[in-house]
C-alpha cells in the first residue's frame, strides 16, 4: 500500500475529498516529525511509539582504500510497536 492508496482508503472511510485527506495526512506526519525533531517520542496508543535514537559516531575503514574515517553521530527514528499491536500481527501466517 503506497501513500496514494492510503489516502484513498482514508478518504473513502471518512467521506472526505482526496485533497482534504492529503492535508490531514500531511498535518499528521509533520506533527509527528516535528515532535520527533524536538527529541520527543510520539506514541500512538494501540499501535506503537515513534522515538528517536542517537547513534554515536563510529570509525569505519574503507575496505578498498584502507582509509579510516569517522561516521558522525546522528539521530535515527525508530518505531517500537506496542505489545498490543505486536500480538495482533504475531500470528499472521507466513507470506
Amino acid at each position, binding site marked *: 500500500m503506497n501513500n496514494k492508496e492510503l489516502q484513498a482508503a482514508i478518504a473513502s472511510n471518512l467521506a472526505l475529498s482526496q485533497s482534504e485527506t492529503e492535508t490531514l495526512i500531511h498535518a499528521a506526519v509533520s506533527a509527528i516529525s516535528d515532535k520527533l525533531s524536538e527529541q520527543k517520542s510520539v506514541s500512538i496508543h494501540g499501535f506503537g511509539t515513534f522515538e528517536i535514537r542517537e547513534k554515536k559516531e563510529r570509525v569505519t575503514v574503507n575496505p578498498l582504500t584502507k582509509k579510516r574515517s569517522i561516521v558522525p553521530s546522528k539521530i535515527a*527514528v525508530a518505531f517500537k510497536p506496542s505489545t498490543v499491536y505486536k500480538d495482533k500481527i504475531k500470528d499472521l501466517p507466513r507470506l
Partner: protein
Amino acid sequence: MNTSKISIQELIDVIAQQTGISKKKAEEFLKVLQSTIEDGLINDRIVKIKGLGTFKLIWNEARKSINVQTGEEYIIPGHTKVSFVPDAQLKELINDKGVKTNESTLPDPLEKLNEQAEEIKGIIADIKEMKKTEPALIQPSESIEEMVKPEPELTNTTVNPTQNEEQVSIQSATLTEKHVLQERDLPIKKKRKEKHVVFFLLVFLVVAGGVGGYLLYKDTVLGPYIVKAESKAKALKDKLVAIFEKSEAENEVLVVEESISTTPLDENMADNATEDEKPPVEAPKSTKKEPVKKVAQQSVFEMPRNQKETITTEVVKKGERLVVYAEKYYGHKDFWVYIYEANSNVLKSPGSVQVGMRIKIPKLNPKLIDINNPEALKYAKQLERNYLQ
C-alpha cells in the same frame, strides 16, 4: 536525551490547530489513519507514508533458544513482526535540528606508530652517541679498534704475503702498487673518521667478536708478515700501510701480467711512502692505470660509455630491479651494471633501486653487450664485482 513522550492527545491538538478542523474530527482521522495502516499492513504487508517512512511486516523464522534459568532448550515459534524504515526526508529533518557533525577522516593510527618509531630511532641514535664517546674515554680500546679496522682486508689477503715475497724482484711493480694502495685507502680512512658513527657500529661488532681472535691472529700471522714487509719496503712504517699493501697485492698480480712498465713511478713511490700521501700526484696515475688494463682485454670496454643516448626510461615498478631491465633490453641480466652506471647519479648503490624511480636505459655499443662474446660477459661480471663491493 530528554525524551518525553507525547501522547495521541497532544498530536490531535496539533493537527486540529494546523488544519483548523475540530479536535473530534482530528481524533477520528487519526484513528482511521491508524486502522488504515493496520489494515494495509495486514493486506499488503507494506504501507508507505510520504514524509514518515515505510511500515513492513516481516516474518521471523522459528529458532531455537535456551531458557536461561532452566537451561532447557525451547523453540521460539515463527512470527510476524513490524518493521519501520524512516523516510529520508524525515531523517534529514531530524538530523538538521540535532547535533550536526561532518564526516571526517580519522588520523591513521599508523601515524602514531610512526611517531613512536621516530622516538625510538632517536633513542637508538642517543645510544650510538654514547657508544661513540665511550671509546674516546678509554683510549686503549680505541687504538685496538684502529688496528682492527683493516682486519677484514687482511683476512681477504692473507695469501698475499707469499705473493709479495715473489714479487720483490719486481720491485717497481710492487712499489707502484703500494702507491695506489695508499692513495686509495687514505681517502677512505678519512671518510671513515668523518662517518665515525656509522663506522663505529661496524668496528664495535668487529671488536666485540674478534678482538681476542685478532690479537692471536696478529701475533701469529701478521707479525711475521709485517716484519717481512718492512724489510722489503723500508718506506712502510706502520702496520696499516703494510696491510694496505697486502690488499693491493692482488692488483699487483694483474699489473704484472700486463707487463706494464711502471718504473718511472718508482722514484715517486719512495717519496710517497715516506710522506704517506701525495694525492694530487697520485690521482692521475690511478686513472691512467685503469684504462690500460682494459685495453689489454678489449678495446670496446675501454671506451667511455655514452650515457646520454638512452633507449628509454623505465619507472621502477614493484619487484623490478636493474637485472630485470638488463634482461629486457640487453638480453642478459649480467649487463645490469651498465644501467647502474648510467644512473649512478640517482643510485647510490646497486641495491638502492626503489619503486617509482626513473631509470634510464642507456644505448650501448652492441659489442659491449654481445651475449655470445665471453669477454663481454666477463667484463660485465668484473664490473659487477667492483660495484658490489
